[in-house]
C-alpha cells in the first residue's frame, strides 16, 4: 500500500523540525567556541556520567577537566547556579537541580543565588517584596525538597545578602558598557537596574566563591542552558582581570516547551510548562494538550512511526526517567509506531504525576529551620578592608 502524500508531508515537516533542533545545538557549540563532551565522555567512568551526560542532555563544556580532576581525587569543587524566582519551579528547573544534585554527589559544594532582584528589574514581579515572598515560600522549600545536603549547599536571596552588592560595585569597573551590551544585547539593558544586575551583580554571583571568605581562587563550575553562555564568557574575562580562575561551564539542552519542541519550557508561559505545584488533573490535561512526535493519522503512525526527538511528551520521560533500559524500550516502540501516542501519554502522565506528588510531599515537610540551615550568611569583607 502506498503512503498517503499528506502523511508523508507531515512526516517530512516533523523531520525538518528534528533537523533544526539538532542543527541549533551543533551551531551553538561551534559558534560559541564550546567543546563537545565526546572526548571527555570516552574517559568518564559510569559513576561520573550520570543520567544527563549519558543521554547527551549535557552536551558541551568549557574547562570541565579541572573540575573532574578535583572530583577524581576526592576533593571538593564548587558549583554556582542561580534561579530567578518569578514563578513556581517547573520540570525544566528540575533538570538543572538534578544536575546540581549529581554534581554534589561527585563532591560539589553548591551555591544557589535566588535572583529576586533580577525578577524585579525585569518586571517579572511587581515588587522586591513579592519576589522575596515567592523565594522563601515557594522556591527555597522546593529546592530543598530535591534532597540537597545543607552542609554543602548555600542558598541566598540576593536582596537579603547585601554584601553581594558591595562585591558587585567592586567588580563594576572591570568591564565597560559596550562590552556588557555586546554580551546581553540592547533589548535587555533598558534600565539602570537591568544594566547593574546583568553585568556586575551577575558576575559577583559567579565569582564570589573565589573570594578569600570561601577559600580563595579555585575552579568554579557553572551549569547553564546554551542561551546563557555569553554570561560565562564575560565572567571568564572578568576572572582573568581579577587574577581569579576563569569559570568552568557545563552546557545542557533545554527541556522543550509542551507546545513547541523548538522552544524551552518557560515559567512565564503556563501552557508550556508543568509546574512542580501542579495537581494531577492539571498535569494530565497539559500532557494531553502537548505537542507530539507522531503523525495525525493512526494508520500513518503505525506505518511510518513517530519522531521521539521532537515529541514534548517523550522528552518528559527522556529528561527525567532514571531507567535507561525502559527509556530505550519506549523510544524504540514509539519510534517504530508500535506504541501509540495515547499509550505513551498514559505512561508519561503516571510517571510525571508520581515524581511531582513525591516532590510535593517532601516540600510540605520543609520547615523554617530547614530553610535557615541552607541560607548563606557569611559576611563578605575582604575587598573592603584597608
Amino acid at each position: 500500500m502506498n503512503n498517503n502524500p499528506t502523511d508523508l508531508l507531515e512526516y517530512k515537516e516533523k523531520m525538518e523540525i528534528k533537523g533544526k533542533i539538532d542543527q541549533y545545538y551543533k551551531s551553538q557549540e561551534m559558534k560559541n567556541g564550546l567543546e563537545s563532551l565526546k572526548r571527555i565522555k570516552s574517559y568518564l567512568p559510569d559513576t561520573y556520567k550520570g543520567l544527563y551526560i549519558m543521554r547527551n542532555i549535557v552536551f558541551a563544556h568549557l574547562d570541565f577537566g579541572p573540575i573532574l580532576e578535583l572530583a577524581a581525587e576526592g576533593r571538593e569543587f564548587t558549583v554556582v547556579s542561580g534561579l530567578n524566582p518569578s514563578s513556581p519551579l517547573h520540570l525544566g528547573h528540575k533538570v538543572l537541580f538534578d544536575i546540581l544534585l549529581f554534581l554534589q554527589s561527585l563532591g560539589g559544594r553548591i551555591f544557589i543565588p535566588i535572583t529576586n532582584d533580577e525578577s524585579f528589574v525585569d518586571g517579572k514581579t511587581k515588587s522586591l517584596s513579592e519576589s522575596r515572598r515567592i523565594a522563601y515560600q515557594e522556591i527555597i522549600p522546593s529546592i530543598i525538597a530535591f534532597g540537597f545536603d545543607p552542609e554543602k549547599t548555600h542558598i541566598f536571596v540576593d536582596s537579603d545578602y547585601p554584601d553581594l552588592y558591595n562585591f558587585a560595585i567592586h567588580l563594576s569597573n572591570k568591564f565597560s558598557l559596550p562590552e556588557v551590551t555586546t554580551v546581553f544585547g540592547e533589548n535587555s539593558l533598558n534600565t539602570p537596574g537591568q544594566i547593574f544586575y546583568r553585568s556586575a551583580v551577575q558576575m559577583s554571583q559567579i565569582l564570589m566563591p573565589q573570594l578569600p571568605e570561601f577559600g580563595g581562587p579555585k575552579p568554579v563550575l557553572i551549569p547553564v542552558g546554551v542561551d546563557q553562555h555569553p554570561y560565562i564568557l564575560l565572567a571568564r574575562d572578568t576572572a582573568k582581570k581579577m587574577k581569579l580562575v576563569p569559570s568552568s561551564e557545563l552546557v545542557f539542552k533545554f527541556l522543550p516547551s509542551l507546545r513547541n519542541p523548538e522552544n524551552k519550557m518557560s515559567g512565564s508561559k503556563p501552557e508550556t510548562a508543568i509546574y512542580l505545584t501542579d495537581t494531577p488533573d492539571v498535569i494530565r490535561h497539559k500532557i494531553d494538550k502537548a505537542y507530539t512526535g507522531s503523525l495525525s493519522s493512526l494508520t500513518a503512525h503505525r506505518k511510518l512511526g513517530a519522531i521521539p526527538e521532537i515529541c514534548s511528551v517523550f522528552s518528559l520521560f527522556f529528561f527525567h526517567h532514571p531507567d535507561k533500559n525502559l527509556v530505550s524500550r519506549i523510544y524504540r516502540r514509539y519510534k517504530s509506531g508500535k506504541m501509540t501516542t495515547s499509550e505513551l501519554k498514559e505512561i508519561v502522565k503516571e510517571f510525571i504525576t508520581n515524581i511531582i506528588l513525591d516532590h510535593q510531599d517532601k516540600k510540605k515537610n520543609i520547615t523554617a529551620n530547614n530553610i535557615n540551615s541552607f541560607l548563606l550568611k557569611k559576611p563578605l569583607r575582604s575587598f573592603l578592608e584597608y
Partner: protein
Amino acid sequence: MGVTIDSLKYYFFLGLFQKFLRQAGLNVEAVINIADTASITNREVDDKEGLYSLRSQRVSFLEKIIRVYGLDIKAIFMSEFAEKVEYRQKLETVKNYSNSKTVKSLLEKTVLRNRLKQEKDSGYRYSLEEIALSLLFNIKIGPPREIYYDKAALIVSKKSEGDTFFGIYLTPTYPLGKNFAYFIIHPDIEQFGVTPYKAGSNKLEDFRIILGKTSIGKLEELINTSFISTNPALPNPVFDLYVISDLARKLLTKDYSLPVYSLSLLKNISFLKTETIENVIKYIYKPLSEGQI
C-alpha cells in the same frame, strides 16, 4: 635520573623484530641510535658533564640489556655517526630538498610548541639530522610523533631519487598512577605520551618506572592506581607495561614470533594489573637485578 622501563619497549621490539626477520630468511642488521648530539648541542642544557655521564650510563645499561635478553643489536652514537662521509652527504641532500612548504610544515609538527622558536632559529637542525640518519636505513622504529619526520623524509627521498624506507611506530608511553582526569586535561600526553628516553619528561618521573630505582612496592602502587579503560582507543599505561614485560618473556624464552594480543585482555582490568605486576617482576626486575637469565 635513570633509565625508564619504557625505553625497553624499543630495544625489545627491535631485537625481536630482527630475529623474526632473520627467521624469515632476511639478513638484518639492527642498530640503536643514541642521539647524544641533540642533547649536547642543546643550548638550554647547562650540565654537559651530566649528559656525558648519562651517555655512558645508557651504554652500559644497553650492554646489559643485550646480554641478558640475548639481543643481536648494536648501539651507535649520533656524534660518531655524524663524522661519517655517507651521513654528511645524506645531510647535504636533505638540506637541499627540504625547502618546500610541505616539508617545513611537517618539520614544525615534529617539534614541541615550546621548542619551536629554538628549532626554527637553528634551521630545524635536529630534524634534518634525524631525517638524514633515517634515510640511511630501510626501516625505522620510533614513537608516533616521528611519523612527521618520516613523511618529510619520504618527500626528500622521492625528490632526490633515493631509496624508500618504512616507519614502524610503537604505542606512546603513558604515565602510571594517574586517574582518568589527568588524560582529559592533558590532550598532548594523550596524543604523544611521554618521551621514552627522558625519565623527567613533563616532570613525570614519579609516575614512571625507573629501572633499578622503582621498588616492587612502588611498582604495585603505580599499577594499581593507574587509569585503565576497556576502550582500546584510550591511553592504557598498564597494557603498555604488560606488552613490554611480554616482549621480555618472549626474548628470554627464545620465542621470536611477533606478538599478538587479544582485546579481551583489556576487559578484565584486575587480571591485567596482576599479570602485569607479576610479569614485570619475573621478566624484567629479576633478570636485570641478577644480570643474567
